[in-house]
């Protein structure tokens, strides 16, 4: 334990008294309001001063409620886990953010909104510290909490984190658009209404190839095929898809390059579409994943590399561009679970199957109609049922959703 842990215990915005928690209860009792992309687009299209102010207040109350729910999740962790310094630090950060935004007065004018946006920006920056800290906490807590429980906690945390960023960034973006009266073509806030699967794929292929080239000195051929026509467009937050594709492609390319006869290896990205979904498949012949590793693919607390590398990484970006700027040869071990959270966020799926000794296939399904609500919490799923999912090691389906899969059947 660090020498100053005694001191740190009292140096906190977290409630010193058990009874102060009442303030949290009020917000935990309120339910979150998930959005759909369509709703966000519709709202953002016809922006007026009043609507902007309404949006600011919506963000204020919604983030408060969502933060409250997550703080409550922290409080439900086993006590010993809660005393882990990393987990505790995040817990304190959450309380600080919660108090700041809870106590913020209602926004009434555009000027109020400007100040509010500063607050939001600050909160977003602080949030970049969360993932590395959680990861370090994860590895240190392995013995004290069942992996399934911890995974559930982490997924809920990450999901919620994305959700707060989505509504905060959306508000910041539409504020910026409103001020400058200049609309970036096709963008409504952070949603791009003209996402094209093939263009995104091509960009991610180029970027991930470069990344591996930089770190390993060589790359492999990546072929893009499939049936999606160039003109198939849909509304989505591009960074979400890019994060996933970048992660999957980097994994495949890197593993291919590390093979003995890497010149013969190819990675294939297949794009498909139908009325309701866009589908991506990343296929490689880089030798597959062994059973031991495959069992822990989606787990946060039993990753083979133990997240020790996180000690060197203070800030971890949630977008592909931010990640790319970081140390290129660090294998952090969070990419896959994060990709799954992104994939499932608007009701999609991510599955990985492997043929040990041959290669791996990753499948992504992205709903394209924009009518799926944010996948925010797991409250409705029984704890017991959730922890039973850990032994379907062969299969990584739409994780923790009770919705039937539109991708996999086994």
């Amino acid at each position, binding site marked *: 334990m660090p020498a100053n842990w005694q001191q740190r215990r009292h140096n906190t915005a977290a409630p010193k008294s058990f009874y102060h928690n009442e303030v949290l209860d009020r917000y935990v009792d309120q339910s979150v309001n998930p959005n759909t992309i369509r709703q966000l687009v519709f709202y953002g299209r016809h922006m007026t001063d009043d609507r902007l102010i309404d949006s600011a207040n919506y963000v204020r109350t919604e983030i408060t409620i969502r933060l409250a729910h997550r703080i409550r999740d922290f409080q439900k962790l086993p006590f010993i886990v809660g005393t882990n310094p990393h987990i505790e630090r995040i817990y304190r950060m959450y309380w600080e953010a919660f108090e700041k935004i809870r106590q913020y007065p209602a926004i009434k004018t555009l000027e109020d909104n400007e100040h509010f946006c500063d607050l939001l920006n600050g909160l977003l920056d602080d949030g970049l510290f969360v993932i590395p800290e959680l990861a370090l906490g994860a590895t240190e807590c392995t013995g004290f909490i069942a992996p399934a429980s911890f995974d559930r906690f982490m997924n809920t945390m990450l999901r919620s984190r994305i959700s707060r960023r989505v509504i905060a960034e959306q508000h910041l973006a539409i504020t910026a658009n409103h001020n400058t009266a200049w609309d970036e073509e096709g963008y409504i806030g952070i949603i791009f209404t003209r996402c094209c699967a093939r263009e995104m794929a091509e960009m991610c292929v180029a970027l991930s190839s470069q990344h591996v080239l930089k770190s390993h000195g060589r790359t492999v051929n990546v072929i893009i095929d499939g049936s999606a026509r160039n003109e198939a467009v849909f509304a989505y937050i591009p960074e979400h898809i890019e994060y996933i594709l970048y992660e999957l492609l980097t994994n495949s390319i890197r593993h291919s390059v590390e093979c003995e006869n890497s010149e013969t290896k190819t990675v294939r990205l297949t794009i498909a579409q139908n009325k309701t979904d866009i589908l991506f498949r990343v296929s490689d012949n880089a030798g*597959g994943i062994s059973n031991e590793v495959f069992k822990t693919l989606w787990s946060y607390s039993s990753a083979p590399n133990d997240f020790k590398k996180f000690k060197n990484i203070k800030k971890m970006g949630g977008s592909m561009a931010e990640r790319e700027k970081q140390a290129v040869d660090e294998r952090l071990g969070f990419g896959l679970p994060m990709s799954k959270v992104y994939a499932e966020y608007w009701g999609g799926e991510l599955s990985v199957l492997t043929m040990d000794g*041959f290669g791996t296939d990753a*499948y992504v399904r992205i709903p394209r109609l924009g009518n799926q609500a944010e996948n925010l919490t797991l409250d409705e799923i029984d704890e017991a049922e959730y922890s039973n999912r850990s032994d379907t090691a062969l299969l990584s389906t739409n994780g923790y959703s009770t919705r039937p899969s539109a991708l996999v059947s086994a």
Partner: protein
Amino acid sequence: MLIRATQLCLRRSLSTARVLKNSNVSVEASQNDVVSFYDAKVINYATRPIRPVTLKELIRFGQPPLSEQSLTQCAHYARTELPVRLAMRVRAFQNLPFIVGTNPHIKDIYRLYFESFDSLEKYSDLPENDNGSDLEFAEKLKDLVERHADNIPTLARGFLECKKYMNTKDMTAFLDDMIHARIGIRLIAEQCISLIHASKNESEDQRRTSYIGIINTQLSPAKVIHHCADFVTELCEFNYGEAPEFIINGHVDTTFTYVPVHLEYMLTELLKNAARATVENAKKNKKPIPPVEVSISHGSRDIGIRVRDQGGGVKPNDLNHIFEYSYTTVKNEETEDSNIFSGITRLAMQSGVGGPIAGLGFGLPLARMYARYFGGSMTLLSLNGYGCDVFLKLKHIDESLGQLEI
């Protein structure tokens, strides 16, 4: 090759024709001819405990050099165990709702099981070293295996007709048990038959040294895939006029220990589905026919076979049901064909090795049951609008499965 295929189809479809034709025949006369309520023989056997044999023992029975003793043990085991298991199947039928039990197809199979039980029962009390009757026993077994070959299609037809009298959960449970037990019974029976014959015919035994009964210790997945692909290609060409190319890659030289007939069944089913979807999809979109890719992997714990097609995929609504019994995406077409070959090959196209299942929806659930039997799995990924990937994972039948009970 085609003649054999046609003969196979002909025999299968004739039995189906018989099944289909008899669907309206009344069978009141035979209502009481199967088992009398007071006949205690079945109960007697059905309540005996099952003595599972482990895979290890099953293999050990047939490990060369074949000894008189191990054969005797195997035969003795089969003689005493099979009647018990058959009796349990009979009991299972007796527990079906009355109305379901009166369905002629279901009754047919019920009667078959009872008769099989009856004919084997007299061998079960013979002393262990009665070698003279072993050969006779083996012949009887062979005959029974033959007669039971078309159980599944007949049952399928019966249950389809009984859909409104039985809830899905119960039906699924019955069929799961039934099929699982059937695989085990056949395994024991065929292993026994094979060993008894092998011991009587030494030269043949030397020729196929990689076999231990019906288990092949050097089974090449690539060879089986080629074989099944050829069969499917001919069927496809007959049915549609063209067929997709099958590309086989990965660890093509690998071998493993498995029951060849199981693998053949599963692969034929998967390749047929892939081919049918590919050709129909290509024709619909007026595009050239893309190939079907089959990849083999040899991992530390299992053999993987992936069948990848561009047949348009499976719709999300269907996806949750494809492994259900009696669920099918095949449209029932009225058969007005004058060409006997086209009729048969269409039936065969929609059938499994176990008999024509003319769109009765048993192919995939059955194949998956085979995959799971030795601890394997079958997973289907659908890129709706593009194609499907089916992953077959099969464990090596070796020491690690030694304790698996049949």
